[in-house]
């Protein structure tokens, strides 16, 4: 191996090494700071980065295989019940909340520290390299992976400096960074052109890693300053953006939930269409919620629609349509003519055809009255399963009810689920099915129940995430950085024009690719051809080409 060549190339790499030295274990007696420095060098080494990447991938696997609290708390409970030993163990080590667990956080935080510790020195080195000249030519260009060499006559090249300048200009015009070193005055030393191309590659690599850090910061900002709430709204009703109006609400640590933007939203109408034919009969085809929104009480309301992929932007928050269902309207009047209940009640869908369950509680009736009901938008009576809906639209709606009388159990102070009737202290009075417009006189009580009609409800998710846009920009920058970093070739090329030897001089061209791409052969070949045009070989048999 050509020792000189090797060291020349090493020299060319100085300050650009992508390879942090493998940290040696510290010597004895280096003290605490020595250990610290050693640990830091370990952490910022490629080897450890690689290890952490694998841990990150491996750690994510249970998050997809086991049910997770964040998305499906019910299945987590079931899992723990069914696999008692393993379930409890998994729960202890955070496997049901992998992406919120301390050990997962530890992996990615270490990776981020490692990344910063790795990329910042690289950034500084790169900034320096951008300002320094391309490396000087190795002593023998013919040892480079691509090279060409020939002898030209002094008659053809009377002024070698002019040749060097022309070669330099040519490369510059093709956007190489170029340094031309002319023949010295004596004419006994060779003159060289040193050229380099593809600094953007390293720029891209650094951009990619920095953007990755920024992406994580964006995600973290969303977690700290963001909030999210879900609310069910019946047609004709509305809600104001305050925490008390939400059915569920979660906020980052740095959010003041008492101080949300004061917008309001009314659901004017809701429309859904479904596939009527074929195998996918009943599959949803379109949803749209007609709403009027008001940024604050002083502003005029804006009427618009919210669809599944078209959220509404309002005052820095986004309102998404995430669900829908039916809210039958009923009126209950007691035997004295007092209205005990009147209005639309939200029924929760239990299947794709919107068989829905709901409950009406009348604590002010005397005795207290409760209705347990199932709403079927397209009702049939299945011989095995009983009443069931066969299509999600209201083609043939019916309300199946049982009425209960007694104590609703609301007074003992325990919060109750509004969708569940506690019948432990109640007596069933009777059951009935109604079509819209029909009335039922509840036996043994005398109240009348009228099924007035059907409204729909929509479930909206309102979220505010200040990290979204920064994360998106950072994400796009990672792609941009990657493209530069993986596709820009990084090359070096040198031309040497030797001193006059009698009436001839030697010409050498060599090229080096610092990346795994092909094409160097062509680049060097083309350059050599151009130089041959300016400094033709003396004769073919003397010229030797390695390209």
């Amino acid at each position, binding site marked *: 191996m050509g020792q000189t060549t090797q060291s020349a190339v090493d020299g060319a790499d100085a300050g650009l090494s992508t390879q942090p030295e493998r940290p040696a274990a510290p010597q004895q007696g280096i003290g605490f700071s020595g250990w610290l420095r050693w640990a830091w060098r370990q952490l910022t080494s490629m080897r450890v980065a690689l290890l952490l*990447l694998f841990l990150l991938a491996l750690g994510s696997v249970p*998050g*997809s295989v086991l049910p997770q609290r964040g998305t499906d708390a019910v299945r987590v409970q079931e899992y723990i019940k069914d696999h008692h030993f393993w379930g409890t163990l998994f729960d202890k080590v955070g496997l049901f909340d992998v992406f919120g667990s301390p050990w997962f956080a530890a992996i990615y935080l270490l990776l981020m520290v490692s990344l910063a510790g790795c990329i910042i020195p690289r950034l500084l080195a790169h900034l320096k390299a951008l300002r320094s000249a391309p490396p000087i030519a190795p002593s023998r260009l013919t040892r480079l992976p691509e090279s060409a060499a020939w002898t030209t006559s002094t008659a053809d090249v009377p002024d070698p400096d002019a040749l060097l300048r022309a070669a330099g200009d040519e490369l510059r015009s093709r956007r190489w960074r170029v340094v031309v070193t002319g023949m010295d005055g004596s004419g006994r030393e060779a003159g060289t052109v040193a050229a380099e191309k593809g600094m953007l590659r390293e720029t891209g690599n650094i951009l990619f890693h920095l953007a990755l850090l920024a992406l994580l910061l964006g995600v973290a900002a969303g977690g700290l300053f963001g909030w999210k709430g879900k609310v069910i709204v019946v047609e004709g009703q509305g809600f104001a953006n305050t925490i008390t109006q939400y059915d569920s609400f979660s906020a980052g640590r740095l959010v003041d939930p008492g101080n949300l933007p004061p917008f309001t939203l009314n659901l004017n109408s809701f429309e859904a269409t479904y596939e009527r034919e074929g195998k996918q009969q009943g599959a949803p085809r379109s949803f749209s919620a007609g709403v009027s929104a008001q940024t604050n009480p002083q502003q005029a309301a804006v009427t618009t629609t919210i669809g599944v*992929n078209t959220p509404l932007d309002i005052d820095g928050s986004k309102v998404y349509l995430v669900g829908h269902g039916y809210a039958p309207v009923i009126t209950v009047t007691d035997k004295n003519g007092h209205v005990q209940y009147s209005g639309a009640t939200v029924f929760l869908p239990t299947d794709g055809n919107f068989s829905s369950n709901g409950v009406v509680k009348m604590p002010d009736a005397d005795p207290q009255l409760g209705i347990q009901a199932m709403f079927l938008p397209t009702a049939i009576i299945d011989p095995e399963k009983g009443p069931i809906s066969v299509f999600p639209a209201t083609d043939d709606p019916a309300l199946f009810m049982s009425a209960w009388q007694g104590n609703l159990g609301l007074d003992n102070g325990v919060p109750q689920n509004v969708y569940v009737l506690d019948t432990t202290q109640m007596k069933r009075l009777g059951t009935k099915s109604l079509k819209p417009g029909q009335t039922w006189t509840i036996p043994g009580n005398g109240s009348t129940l009228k099924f007035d009609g059907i409204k729909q409800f929509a479930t909206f998710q309102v979220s505010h995430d200040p990290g979204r846009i920064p994360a998106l920009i950072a994400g796009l920058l990672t792609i941009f950085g*990657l493209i530069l970093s993986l*596709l820009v070739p990084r090359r070096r090329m040198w031309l040497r024009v030797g001193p006059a030897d009698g009436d001839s001089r030697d010409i050498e061209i060599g090229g080096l690719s610092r990346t795994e791409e092909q094409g160097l052969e062509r680049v060097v070949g083309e350059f050599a051809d151009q130089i041959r045009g300016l400094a033709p070989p003396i004769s073919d048999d003397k010229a030797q080409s390695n390209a």
Partner: protein
Amino acid sequence: MSSTSLAQLSNVFVYSSMLVYTGSFITFAVSLASTQAREDVNVDLTEKVAVAASGSGEPAKPSRRVTGVPVERKPDALPPGRRAGNIAMALMWLATILLAAGVIARGISAGRAPWGNMYEFSTASALAISAVFLGVSVKKDVRWLGVFISGAVLLTLGLAVTVLYTDSEQLVPALRSYWLAIHVTAAIISGGAFTFGAFVTMLYLVRDRAEEKAGEGQPVKGWLASRVPSADRLDALAYRTFAFVFPLWTFAIIAGAIWADYAWGRYWGWDPKETWAFITWVIFAGYLHARATAGWRGRRAAVIALIGFASFIVNYFVINLVTSGLHSYAGVS
């Protein structure tokens, strides 16, 4: 033409493409079998290769390059296996055009981008695998890979028409978004390139082992190993494939996040599909790192790439068919 008859036409195209792919597969196999084992010799070009080491600054591993020793034959005769290889390539082009017609007809019949369910996703993926192969074949002779590629395409199409077939239908509203189309297109092309790269990587492992066994300057033994390019060339081809696909895969994930943000009100939620996309991404980041880490280049990096490909396949089949995330094409509520 009505949408049902277009869908039927699409099926006819897909089935005929399978027929032609089968022909291509057989001809590629014949071509590979009749290729004379290249009488290659391991040549130590340490001197040249040492300086060619990519920008890692460490001494390069002595690399083996291989030069073919020409076998004497009549000047006008094609090398053995070459004619079969040419026919196989032509069949591959024909089959791919038929498949593309099938995919397009399906899209027109449904009035949307034709990748809304597993069947359509699989046929489009088969198309992507062929397209990547044919794309590379324009610049490079990759006939030696043809039997593997056409085999993979046939397998994918076979699964599609038997297990996964679904009639041409509209989509549930959550899936109707042009970000989804962009996301899935990027994912499908990535899938084609991942598959291509994985086959090259497997052949690299076979060849590399054979070269090592043969030792410097000796002919490479082994039926398959002696019929494929040198380990260095396979390694470089695999790397270039993965270097192309990694930014695209990153883009696919980000486009998916944008869609998720529109559809579900969050851009990332660790749904099983998202989780495995992330795992695949991290493993390939590991692969790219490994290639720049001393002691990890070569075979170890290749194994990492294969693990990454496996995780892509897990995401594609297992997650779609087994788990019940939002991505399993459920409706909104």
